[in-house]
Each structure stands twice: as C-alpha cells, then as structure tokens.
C-alpha cells in the first residue's frame, strides 16, 4: 500500500501521531475558530497598548484609531511624573521578591520533610495544609487585618508582607515534586555522612529546580498582581503597591484614559516578560499542581 507523504501544510499544522486527524479543510476551520477566540482575548491587551500611545485628544474620537496615527509618549510621561508612581513600583517589587524568595525556600524545605522525612504527625499536619489550600483568602481577611492592627503593623512593610509568606499551596506543590525523587539518592548521601541540610541543599534542590522555578514564577506573578490585601493593609500613599496605585490614579483622573492605559501597560510589562521568558514552565507546571486525571 503506497502512502502519500503528507503535504507541507499538513506536516506543519497537524500532529502526525494523532489518531483522529482532521482533513486539511477541517484543520483550516479549527485554526479559524481558534484564531477568532484568540483575537477576542488579545484585542483588549492590544487596545491597552494602542491607547497608551495615543494622544489624549485623539483617544476620545470616533472612529477610534486602531493604530496610533501620531504616537506619543505623553501618557507615559504623565504616569511617571506622578509623585508616587516609582514608589509604588518599588513597593510592589519589594513585596513580590521577598515573598517569592521566602516561599520557594521554606516551601521546599517543608515539602522535603513531608515527602522524605518520617516524623510524628506528618499525615495530620499535611491534611491541615490541604484544607488550607482550599480555604478562600477572603474568609481570613478580616481577622488578619485585626491581627496586624493589634501588632501595630498596619501601613508597614512587615504588616503588608508577613501574612503573604504563609503558603500551604507552595508546600503541597513542592511535596509533589520531591516525592518523585528516588529515596535511594538521599539514603546513599546519608551513608556518606551528609547531614539532613546538606542532603536537602546538595542532593534534593538541584533535582527539583524546575519545580522551584515554577513555584517562584507563579508566586511572583500572584504577588505582583495582588490587590485586596495591599488595599486593606496599607493606608498612606507612599505605602501603596502598584495595583492599588493604578486604581487610585483612575479615581483621581477618571476621564484620562491614556493615563490609565499607559500605567496599566507599565504594570503589565514585567509580568509579560516573565511569562514569555518562562513560558514552558507555565504551560507544563500547571498540570503538576492539579489532579492527575
């Protein structure tokens, strides 16, 4: 039986091993539907960038310009000249970096303990953790606020950051990663006289770097994007984070859309860079934290 070599188009577009391959026309239809849906999600982001570069007078005109005819940096200059904008960026960076470093390190340690070290109460404590992962943050928002008020930490970096360091999900995730390592590796290191910290640091962490990277990336993104907690935990303008600042700017200048979009673009850039730099971790790592279906 002579099988014809699939055309260049089919080879580029269709998975050769798939059991139910669509016809070429079917593949075009599939790609068409996907592209329409994809454009719907990307057009708003595109529109943000276009408006950010459009002069304020041209932004409020019909029909809207789909490509800025006279691109300008005025909106960005307006954002950067706000007294607190740079401070908000600094605050968000401090918060996201501190939480990410602490979470990755301590969650890996705890995950290692749950995965590989037998100790009394291990099962029980892990259940507490699992239930905590499912608990919506909003249910502890009010008592958490009372707690930092009582500690005198409202409107301080400590009050903002300390509550974010607790990461039951991180521990759960790192346990999943570390569990897959063969225990013989640790046993042989133990026989060679390594102590538990040396085993963790020199044997375990090098083998789960991709897991730690994934946890680090999603923690950083989540913290950078966080809104509700920074909104209630800070008060003075100089302590606000970028996300809260974006909303404050809009409240001050409700009709200056170029300003909103320029500030939103600036706030989105670091995250979009992180996303494209670590794309494969995002697309692969997500499946580890979820069920294995």
């Amino acid at each position, binding site marked *: 039986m002579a099988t014809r070599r699939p055309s260049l188009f089919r080879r*580029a*577009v269709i*998975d050769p091993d*798939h*059991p*139910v*391959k*669509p016809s070429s026309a079917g*593949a075009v239809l*599939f790609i068409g539907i*996907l592209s329409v849906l*994809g454009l719907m*999600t*990307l057009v*708003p*982001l595109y*529109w943000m960038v276009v408006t950010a570069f459009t002069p304020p007078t041209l932004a*409020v005109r019909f029909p*809207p310009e789909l490509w800025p005819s006279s691109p300008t940096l005025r909106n960005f200059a307006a954002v950067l000249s706000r007294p607190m904008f740079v401070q908000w960026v600094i605050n968000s960076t401090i918060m996201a970096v501190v939480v990410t470093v602490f979470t990755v*390190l301590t969650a890996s340690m*705890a995950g290692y303990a749950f995965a590989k*070290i037998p*100790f*009394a109460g291990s099962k029980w404590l892990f259940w507490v953790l699992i239930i*905590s992962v*499912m*608990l*919506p943050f*909003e*249910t*502890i*928002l*009010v*008592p958490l606020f*009372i*707690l930092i008020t009582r500690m005198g930490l409202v409107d301080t970096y400590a009050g903002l950051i300390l*509550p974010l*360091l*607790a990461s*039951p999900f991180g*521990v759960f995730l790192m346990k999943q990663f570390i569990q897959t390592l063969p225990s013989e590796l640790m046993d042989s290191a133990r026989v060679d006289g390594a102590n538990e910290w040396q085993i*963790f640091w020199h044997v375990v962490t090098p083998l789960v770097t991709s897991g730690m990277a994934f946890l680090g990336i999603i923690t950083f*993104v989540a913290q950078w*994007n966080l*809104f*509700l907690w920074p909104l209630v935990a800070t008060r003075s303008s100089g302590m606000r984070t970028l996300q809260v600042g*974006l909303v404050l700017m*809009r409240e001050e200048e409700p009709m200056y*859309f170029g300003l*909103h*979009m320029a500030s939103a673009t600036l*706030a989105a850039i670091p*995250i*979009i860079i992180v*996303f*494209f730099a670590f794309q494969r971790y*995002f*697309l692969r790592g997500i499946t580890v934290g*979820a069920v294995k*279906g």
Partner: protein
Amino acid sequence: MGRWARANVRGYLFLLPQFSVFFVFFLIPVIGAFALAFFDYRPTRVSFVGLDNFRRVFSDPLMGIALRNTVLFTVGVVVFWLGKAMLIAYLLDPLSKRLQTFYKSAFYLPSVTSGVIISLIWLWIFNPTFGLLNAALRTFGIEGIAWLGNPNTALGALIAMQVIMGGGSSIVLLSAALARIPREMYEVAILDGASRGIVFTQVIVPLIKPVLLYLVVTGTINTFQVFESIYVMTQGGPQFATITVVYRIYQTAFQQFQIGLASAQAIVLFVLTFALAAVQFRWLGKHVEY
C-alpha cells in the same frame, strides 16, 4: 534529648520556617474568623453577642442581592468559561505541537495580567461614548448603551469580560488530559464506525471527567470570590446590580467598620464555598471512573 525528639526533630526543623508564619498568619486568623463572628468588635470594647451577627447577615437585604448576583455570575462564568476551554482544547488536540504552544500562550497571556489591569482595559472598552465596543457596534449601525451603567446589562457585561479573558490554565490542563488519552481508545471507537460526536461524548468526556470535575470545583470556588473587577469597575452598582458577597464583606468591614458582622458574612461565604464544592464532588464524582 529523648528518643522521641531525636526521631522527629529533623522533620520539625525543616517545617519550622514555613509553619511559624503559617501558624501565626493563617491558622490563628482561621480561628479568629470563627471567633470574631460571635462578638461585637469595636476598638474600645469587645462584647459577646452570640448569634446576633448571623441573624443580621440573613436579614440584610443587600446580602441577599449580593448572594443572588454572585451565584448568577459564578454559574454564567463557569459554564461559558469551561465550554470555551473545552472547545479550544478539543480543537487544539490534533494540531501540531508548535501551533498548540502558540495558541496556548495566546490564551494564557490574560491570565497572568492582573485583575486590576483587565478591569481598567474593559472600563475603557465598555465606555459608552468613546469605548471600542460601542464604536464597533456603531459601524454596524447599532447604537450601543452604557453597558456598566445599566442595571440590566452590568452583570452580564462583567460575565462576558471574565469569559473572554479567562480560561488560560483550564485550556492547558484540558489539553494535557486529552493528550493522555490512550490512542487505542480512539482506534477501537473508529473501528466501530463511531462519528466525531460519538467519539467526543463516549470516549473523550468520560476519560477526562476527573479534570473537568477539578476545573468545575476550583473554578466555582475562585469565581465565587469575585471582587477586583467589582471594586474597580462598578462598586457594586448600578442599583446594586453587581454587588457580590466578597464586595459586601469588604464594605461591611472596611467602610462601615462592623468587624463582627463582616466575620459572620465571611463564615457564611466559607460554608457556602465548601458546600458547593462538596455537592459538585458528589454530583460529578459519581460519574467518574478511575
């Protein structure tokens, strides 16, 4: 050091850094959440009021509206969102790896962009006079309305926004689940002469049911907590058409400073979330074959 301590101390030392913050800033607030709900908490004095706060939660008409809105919003978002993710994952499955990665990235991008940014963009898109949506409608000769300013359309507009921008991680998960389906399952079905539709309902759906269940449960829990878009875009209006449970809790605690009442509301939210998850697990879990 006793024998018990020696056997366990290694494990505890590794837990210590994470569990010290977890204990102070997570477990204590969880206990606090339940305790506060039974008190009238003021800066100057704290008094036990029994179930009074809960009685006030259930007699608060705004809480009733908030609950109704939140349920409508959650059902709308989860149904359309999952449908969209399922369609996309299904269409992506037979395509080449390179195309898959391209589309997955495109759909995932809004999921890493913050809720505040998405809300600001859509405030601009929904703007009645200068927004992109009404401009697009006008080119078709349709006069648009103030989508967020009209109590009949505000909640629907927020649902549409959430569905259009969301679903990135569901697509990745569903895609991975589809790729794990053993190839022989398809071959048997095809030999039996099954059509595409039959393959989908009889082969694919039963095999990815655990992932679907997971997505329904986590999607429901997460969507139920909707807050940012409400705070940024509508403040619960117009005429309370978009007030939601978490937004109501925020108002009660941080605008009206009724800490005890807000805690009781949060407990109601907590119970509802877990009840929803449990119902879904029972209802969908019955049909899951491992």
